[in-house]
């Protein structure tokens, strides 16, 4: 089933803020083999928040995660993320087109700290393949 075209422009917040702890950073850094100490936040760490916001979007639209493939991801950082930050993500659907039976969904995620300042922005393309049966 194609994705509803009226979604473009809609906003989906991540369900909860994320406090950046040493444990959380350490687990992420270990999983990707990132060098540096436990205060060194890997640059792709904000995907944790962007992914939460994306799940809020998929759940709201009843889109199955296993039909989504990540097509593109870009991050622009205003400052490094640090242990102790409390981060919030808000995802906006920025575009939608169909290619060969797949929905190509454009999203932008703004990640802000507890003061409301933008820490990082993410742009993603999600490829949704509809049921083929």
């Amino acid at each position, binding site marked *: 089933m194609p994705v509803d075209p009226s979604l473009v422009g809609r906003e989906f917040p991540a369900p909860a803020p994320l406090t950046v702890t040493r444990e959380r950073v350490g687990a*992420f850094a270990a999983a990707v083999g990132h060098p540096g100490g436990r205060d060194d936040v890997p640059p792709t760490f904000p995907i944790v928040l962007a992914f939460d916001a994306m*799940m809020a979007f998929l759940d709201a639209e009843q889109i199955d995660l*296993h039909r989504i*493939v990540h097509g593109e991801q870009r*991050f622009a*950082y205003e400052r*490094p993320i640090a242990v102790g930050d409390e981060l919030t993500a808000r995802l906006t659907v920025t575009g939608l087109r169909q290619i060969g039976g797949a929905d190509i969904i454009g999203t932008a995620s703004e990640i802000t700290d507890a003061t409301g300042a933008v820490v990082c922005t993410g742009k993603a393309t999600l490829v949704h393949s509809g049921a083929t049966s």
Partner: protein
Amino acid sequence: MNAGDVLEPKTFTVTRADLVAYADASGDQNPIHQDEDVARSVGLPGVIAHGMYTLALVGRAVAEWTDGAEVVDLGAKFTSPVVVPAEGGADVVVAGTVKSVADGLATLALEVTCDGQKVLGMPKAVVRA
């Protein structure tokens, strides 16, 4: 760093166990990264690495090359999947050169391959020089 510097290519082996650990650490439990049957059911050749795992390996290479320089921009298109076999692993090679250094920022030109095939399109990393 100077424009034209060739950075030492980094090879990282990705295993199924790495993908499970990454799913837990990132929250991305999409079964196409862990379950062969689900991956094939949506037309993939097998279990594939999270695109963000591959991009994290780029972040790791950049950190190793630059001794942890602050990253200002990082991104790529996930143009070809990194298929991770049940036994052994897939080798991802991250190669790079310093494309330009200007205004305190170094832009790296990157080529990321698996089995000789490019897996990232237009990969980009910019760090504070």
